């Protein structure tokens, strides 16, 4: 993998700063971050998991999303690079998925079957605590991340963690809990909306997600707001159209 370009990196940092002063939505923010990280490092897919109150890793956002990827993120509740990064507070770098079946017997074969060859995971650190992990999948092994790349991606992961504290009263631990719980619930609403759209149109949940995400982008709405409308207002199911 080539080293990360300074200009593109600077652009991402400006964009992140811009998000943080705007009206802030945690899910949108995390989604933007996974998207930009994927572009920046030339990864196939980047995902982000946060620990809920019980310490279980929950999928929050990814640069790409489908049933197979969701399973890959979900299984890391039990094993996988994100769980390792979460528990050790250290990144997992350049793991070759074809050599990883012994380390992650459930995760590795699934990731390989999904077309990935390499995987990385970076802990999301907030003060002394690890609150989740950033997951980077690559389609190729070889030319892995060097030390400089690792530092940059870890910095992006740290920004994601800081983003969680965006609401004003930074000293209040309660705010983090409130915001995280709100975002976890919004994630559920997105899944419910996929199901509703899939049933209404007779399509797969992955196709439903493409429609919902496309509509959110075209109308400049938050994904979680569109999803919420879909499951609370049946009329929305017919008015939302494909491009």
């Amino acid at each position, binding site marked *: 993998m080539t080293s990360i370009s300074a200009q593109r990196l600077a652009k991402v940092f400006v964009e992140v700063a811009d998000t943080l002063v705007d009206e802030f939505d945690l899910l949108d923010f995390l989604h933007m971050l996974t998207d930009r990280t994927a572009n920046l490092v030339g990864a196939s897919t980047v995902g982000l998991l946060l620990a809920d*109150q*019980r310490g*279980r890793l*929950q*999928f929050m956002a990814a640069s790409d999303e489908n*049933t197979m990827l*969701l399973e890959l993120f*979900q299984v890391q*509740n039990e094993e996988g690079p994100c769980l390792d990064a979460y528990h050790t507070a250290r990144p997992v770098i350049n793991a070759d998925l074809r050599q990883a079946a012994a380390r992650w017997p459930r995760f590795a074969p699934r990731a390989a079957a999904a077309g990935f060859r390499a995987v990385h995971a970076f802990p999301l650190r907030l003060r002394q605590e690890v609150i989740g992990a950033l997951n980077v999948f690559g389609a190729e092994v070889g030319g892995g991340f060097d030390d400089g790349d690792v530092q940059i991606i870890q910095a992006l992961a740290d920004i994601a963690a800081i983003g969680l504290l965006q609401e004003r009263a930074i000293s209040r*631990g*309660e705010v983090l*809990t*409130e*915001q995280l*719980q*709100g975002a976890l*619930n*919004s994630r*559920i*609403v997105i*899944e*419910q*909306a*996929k*199901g*509703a*759209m*899939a*049933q*209404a149109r007779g399509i797969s*949940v992955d196709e439903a997600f493409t429609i919902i995400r496309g509509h959110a982008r075209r109308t400049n709405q938050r994904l979680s707001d569109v*999803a*919420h409308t*879909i*499951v*609370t207002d*049946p009329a929305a*199911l017919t008015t939302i159209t494909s491009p």
Partner: protein
Amino acid sequence: MAPPGGWGTSVSDTDEPIAGAMEHVAHQPAGGAVDGLVGVLQRLCTAAAGALSASGAGVSVMAEGGARGIAAASDPASARIEELQFIVGEGPCIDAFALRRPVLVPDLTDGVTHRWPAYAPAAHDEGVRAVFAFPLQVGAARLGVLDVFRARAGPLSGAELRLAFTFTDLAVRTILDGQDLAVEGAAAGGLDEAIEHSAELFQAQGMVMVQLGVSLAEALVRIRAHTYAQNRRLGDVARDIVARRLRLDPDDS
């Protein structure tokens, strides 16, 4: 679904919080004159208050528009404080429902009077110094709120917060499963906790909502009722629904 008996041996490590909370509830005396769902919720409130070193706790079941349905509390004073919010039309419980996230107020005197000008002083007069409100919801299906009241200011510890979320989960299951299944259904569901957070289950909820033309909350109830009636696992039922191998019968409620 695995039989609910013998939590102590059959429950895995990750399910221990739920099992612990269930035990707290099981050890409460049956609600005397109060039977059914309200009685179970009342025992849940008493157990939650005890486990969280709180002066009391209350549950308000609410309609989507915010109207209050049945309510339960650990004691008469908590019932009054809970009801107060609906009389003055403001408070942490109402905010938690509207914002769809917890509202945690470790110090009721600390600058919250402007947030709830009527509620904050009235609750303070009742001796409440901290309020923690947890929405009872599964995604967009909103069922109500669990409120925990404390007579001293200060935050919930990490362990207390985890326990509070466990009681919240338990209250959600109790309301969804209704009085008949309240204890056994929730206990069996406790064995299934990882599944209850799978993307497939939430997708299935949205699908059943559209398929049966019911509300999302009703869809959750139908899926759970079907699972219990067929003695299956929630995750398997959800998978079959998403794969379109299973359509719930519109009359099967």
